[in-house]
């Protein structure tokens, strides 16, 4: 069965947010809605080594949208079956069936489904399904100047890039089996790192 997935290279991302803007533009999202978000993760500080003070400050970015999980908790919890997984693995929301109960947003550990007050229903990344159906890449992938984003079949992406699935502050992949392949920043396993732009990202 097909399993379309994103690849994200955290070590290459400069945090320019071109992907975020491309997504917002393509999907005509209102203020406050970001179906792809760039999280700025930072940590470290100064520590004394002998007589000297040494810095181990670090920062990296995580560009994330819906991960089109193999076990989508959003779809399992949706009372109206408005959230469905297509044969190609893309998880989509049918706005006509959605009642805007926000139960999917409670459950998703990636903050993917977002409530749109103007329409009264949930919305999220659909991997630019219309582009995919035309054989094109999702908008965010083509917008990335660093080529930090890629898209394709999950197994092919793993073979091409390898897979580091435990990146702070993402949850354990075993929970939802996200269809994302990550190349982690060298400090991405540091549990003392924190998301620095919480206010910018808003109601995630």
């Amino acid at each position, binding site marked *: 069965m097909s399993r379309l997935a994103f690849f994200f290279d955290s070590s290459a991302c400069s945090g320019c947010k071109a992907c975020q803007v491309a997504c917002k533009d393509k999907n005509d999202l209102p203020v406050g809605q970001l179906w792809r978000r760039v999280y700025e993760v930072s940590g470290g500080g100064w520590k004394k080594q002998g007589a000297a003070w040494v810095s181990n400050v670090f920062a990296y970015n995580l560009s994330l949208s819906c991960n089109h999980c193999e076990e989508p908790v959003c779809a399992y919890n949706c009372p109206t*079956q408005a959230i469905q997984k297509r044969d190609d693995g893309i998880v989509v929301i049918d706005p006509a069936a959605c009642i*805007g109960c926000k139960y999917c947003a409670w459950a998703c550990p990636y903050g993917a489904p977002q409530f749109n007050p103007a329409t009264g229903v*949930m919305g999220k990344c659909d991997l630019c399904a219309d582009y995919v159906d035309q054989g094109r890449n999702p908008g965010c992938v083509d917008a990335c100047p660093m080529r930090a984003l890629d898209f394709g079949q999950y197994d092919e992406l793993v073979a091409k890039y390898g897979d580091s699935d435990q990146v702070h502050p993402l949850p354990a992949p075993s929970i939802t089996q996200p269809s994302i392949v990550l190349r982690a920043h060298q400090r991405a396993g540091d549990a003392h790192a924190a998301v620095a732009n919480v206010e910018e990202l808003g109601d995630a």
Partner: protein
Amino acid sequence: MRRRDLSLVFFTLLAQCSIGIVLWLMLLALITGQRPVSAETGLAPGNPVLLALLLVVLATTMSFLHLGNPRSAPRAIRNLATSWLSREILAIGLFTVCLLLAFLTGWRTGAAGFAGLLLLPAALAGLFLLWTMSGVYSIVTVPSWNSAHTPIGFTLATLSLGAVSCLLLAVAGTIEVEAFALDLCAATWLATLLLEAGTSLANQRRLEKMDTGFRGPAFRHGVLRGGFLARGGVLLLTALGIAVLLLQPGAAFAPDHSGWIYPLLILGVVQEFIGRILFYASYFRLGL
């Protein structure tokens, strides 16, 4: 807690109060060995079955305020296989229908009371509803809710709110129950409150130890500590008041003690309200 969650605070409390009334009516019947007799039937405001019915209808109405697109609400029962929310909606429908049948039967027969046998399905549907309500919050990615504290808290709240309502109706004279049964009801309420105080304290400690990840350690910053302390204070004050009343000679929950009883009943509702706000405010999920 977000403002939109306030409708869920009212929904859960009102529904659990309705279930609690039905359960307590059944318990009083078991304790006394006879059907609890209502002095008021039909559309009289003191009819306990009508009160339970109105509460669950109001609860359902409040739940609609939470929806962004309520016109599609009938679809919400389509995912019974995996969605606890669908199951909850089925359960609240069953509970409402059972209550409606019990009410209509009592009204039609004009009996000085209500059809006890018809309350049994309502009580079972109420327990099913209580179970599904707990299930809604058993989300694997929300560790603050996904624990035994949720079903325990909901069950205790149901018993507590049901006791408050039945004692209120008894003091107002709209249901006739023997004094010893009412005292037993009050004593059970007291025990429920003490259990709630204990579990609330344990839950607070559990939450404060949690790594809340992306959102930051809100609990360790003491945001919720004040709320838990306030609830604990109201809980203990209510429990103390009930204990004092129970130690009085004669029937404790009689109309001549209403000057003491009404404030206690109000405190009982207030502490449940604070507790439910704290429940929703404690939400955080794993990940981002």
